[in-house]
């Protein structure tokens, strides 16, 4: 099992999938910050004054970590940030589910209508596993870092 997880090509695939998802998710949100702010407000967790600050900064963190991960720069650090973000997102989706909120998750473009729900949580867990994989078994294949 460990040999499979250490396989450098498998690691490259994990890294690229994770990176591309974050880059695309981030770009979609950057293009429409107001919509993203509304999506965040739907979770009813964050105070109103913080909504725009999150909507302005978070998408860029997603894009930057995604791009750096794609090119293999600071892979360990970026996969740690992405993994942490994914765990937080999953917690928020889960609490929204528990409170019975029927809302768009705001994960990608808000218009795609992905609802908060079990499928979203399973997707998120998949991404968490990918980031754990990349974090612990990182191989320098096609990486810029030295």
């Amino acid at each position, binding site marked *: 099992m460990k040999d499979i997880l250490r396989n450098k090509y498998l690691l490259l695939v994990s890294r690229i999938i994770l990176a591309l998802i974050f880059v695309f998710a981030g770009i979609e949100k*950057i*293009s*429409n*910050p*107001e919509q993203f*702010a509304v999506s965040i*407000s739907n979770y009813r967790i964050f105070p*109103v*004054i*913080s*909504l*725009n*600050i999150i*909507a*302005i*900064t*978070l*998408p*860029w*963190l997603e*894009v*930057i*970590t995604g791009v*750096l991960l794609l090119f293999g720069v*600071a892979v*360990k*650090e*970026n996969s*740690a*940030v992405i993994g942490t973000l994914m765990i937080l997102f999953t917690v928020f989706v889960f609490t929204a589910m528990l409170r*019975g*909120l*029927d809302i768009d998750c705001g994960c990608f473009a808000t218009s795609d209508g992905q609802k908060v729900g079990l499928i979203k949580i399973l997707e998120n867990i998949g991404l968490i596993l990918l980031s754990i994989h990349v*974090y612990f078994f990182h191989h320098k294949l096609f990486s810029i870092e030295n």
Partner: protein
Amino acid sequence: MKPDYRKIFIIVLVSFALGFIYNFLSQNGISIIRQETEIIYDETINYDGNKDDIKINEIRALNTAQVYEIFTNKEAVFVDARDSWDFSDGHIPGAVNIPEYKFTPDDPNIKYLDKNRKIIVYCEGDQCEVSQRLAVELQKLGYKKVWIYFGGWKEWFENNLPAEKL
């Protein structure tokens, strides 16, 4: 091997900086601090509600005194947009509970709403937006005489106005 926390700090800092710079330059930029929804109190309604030129999504609000007057005159149906748990804990007497979070156009309680009567939607109070969203949904269904009581249950309760428990 632990990650280099200094690198993480730099990555986060640079991302946030780029976010603020982009937002400043972008046409779609938003204000850094979100303004809370501005409430426009309806001063001119004189409670007839017969405005046919009302636009959908227009939010008309009433204050506690206005709402109480309508309440004592039994001029309106009250709609409680909170969930049934909050509703059963206390609500404006006679209010109909239509939880916004699971609202569908065939909600069983919709039948209690008469299109010719005034409808006042409220929720917990302050900035809870569920009453706004529910009002918009009702407007889409053709209800024109919809107002929002932003003070909500909180303000009603604080003023020791009549309450009903299930």
